[in-house]
C-alpha cells in the first residue's frame, strides 16, 4: 500500500511540475510581448526626440496590444489559481465539466506543441460527482497524454462528459491511431493506482477509436 501511495505522490508531483512549467512558459511569452511593445514605445519616443512626429493612432494600437496581453496573462493566472486550489480539499463535490475544462485549458499549449487540437464537448448541465479533485485532474491528464499519442492523422482529441446511472464518465474520442498503439502499456501502474483510488474504471474500445473513464458518483461509496 505504501508503495502505491508513493507512486501516486510521485505521479502527482510530476503532473504538478508539468503543468506549472507549461503555465510559466505561457506567462514568459506574454511578458516577452509586453516587453517588445514597451520597447517599441520607447523607440517611438526616442524618434520623437529627434523630430519625428508621434502618431496618436500608433500609440493607441500599442496600448491596446499591451492591454490584450494583460488580459491574456490574467486568464492564465486565474487558471493557475484554480489549479493550485484543486489541492485545498482532498475530497469534495465537483462539476466534472469544470474539472475537464480546466485540464483542457492547462493542456492546450502542450497539445499544440504536439501539433494537436483538443475539442471538449461539455454537458450544458452540471455533472456532479464527489471525488478527489487533484487526483482526478492528474488522471485525466494521464489519459489525455495517452489519447494525444493515439490521435492519429486526424490530430484532434475529442473529450466528452456524460452523466451515467452510477455516476459520470469521460469519453476520449476520435483516436484514429488507437489501434496502432500497444495497449499493454496503458493503463500502466501509475494509472492503475489512480483508478483504484478514484473508484474508476477504464474501458478501451479500439473499434470505435475511443476509451471511456467511468467514475463513481461518490468516491467513498464505491
Amino acid at each position: 500500500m505504501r508503495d502505491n501511495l508513493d507512486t501516486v505522490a510521485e505521479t502527482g508531483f510530476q503532473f504538478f511540475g508539468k503543468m506549472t512549467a507549461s503555465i510559466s512558459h505561457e506567462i514568459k511569452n506574454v511578458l516577452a510581448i509586453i516587453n517588445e511593445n514597451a520597447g517599441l514605445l520607447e523607440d517611438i519616443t526616442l524618434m520623437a526626440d529627434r523630430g519625428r512626429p508621434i502618431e496618436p493612432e500608433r500609440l493607441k494600437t500599442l496600448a491596446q496590444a499591451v492591454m490584450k496581453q494583460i488580459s491574456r496573462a490574467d486568464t492564465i493566472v486565474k487558471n493557475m489559481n484554480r489549479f493550485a486550489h484543486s489541492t485545498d480539499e482532498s475530497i469534495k463535490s465537483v462539476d466534472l465539466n469544470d474539472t475537464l475544462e480546466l485540464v483542457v485549458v492547462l493542456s492546450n499549449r502542450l497539445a499544440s506543441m504536439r501539433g494537436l487540437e483538443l475539442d471538449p464537448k461539455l454537458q450544458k448541465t452540471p455533472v456532479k460527482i464527489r471525488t478527489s479533485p487533484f487526483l482526478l485532474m492528474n488522471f485525466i491528464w494521464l489519459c489525455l497524454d495517452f489519447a494525444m499519442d493515439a490521435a492519429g492523422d486526424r490530430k484532434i482529441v475529442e473529450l466528452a462528459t456524460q452523466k451515467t446511472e452510477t455516476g459520470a464518465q469521460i469519453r476520449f474520442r476520435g483516436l484514429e491511431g488507437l489501434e496502432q498503439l500497444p495497449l499493454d502499456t496503458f493503463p500502466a501502474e501509475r494509472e492503475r493506482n489512480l483508478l483504484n483510488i478514484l473508484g474508476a474504471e477504464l474501458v478501451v474500445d479500439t473499434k470505435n477509436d475511443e476509451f471511456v473513464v467511468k467514475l463513481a458518483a461518490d468516491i467513498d461509496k464505491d
Partner: protein
Amino acid sequence: MKIRVLLVDDEEEFVRTLSERLTLRDYDITASLSGDDALQKIKQYNYDVVILDVAMPGIGGIDALREIKKMKPLTEVIMLTGHGTVETAIEGMKLGAFDFLMKPCNTEELDTKIKKARARKAEHEERIRAAKVSDIISSPRSVLEDD
C-alpha cells in the same frame, strides 16, 4: 548592406513587434511563425542570422537548427528561450548555434549578438574565399581540370 535576419517564433504579436523594432535598427527582417515555414524560407534565401524560438509547435527549435546547419552551415543561429528550456538552448549551442537569449529579451543585447553573429559569418565566408584563392594560386591546373 543590411544584415538579413529571419525571426522565427510562433507568437505572432511577438514576431510583429520585434520585427518592427529591429527594422528601426536598420536590419532586413523576414518573419516566420513556424519551424517548417522557416526552413522553406531558408531553402530559398540566404539569411545572415536566424533568431529561432526553442519551443514551437510542429518542428521544434532544436530540429529546425539541425536542418538549418545542414542546409546553410554558414548561417548563424541565435536561440530564444523561456527559462524552462535553457538546457535545450545549451544543447543548441553544442549543435552549432551562435548564442542564446532568454525571453523577455533585452533588445540592445539582441542587437549586439546579431552583429557579432553576422561578423562571425563574414569571417567564415572570408576564410573559405581565401582558401579557394590559395588553391587556385598553388595549383591553377587543378582549377582548370575541375572546370
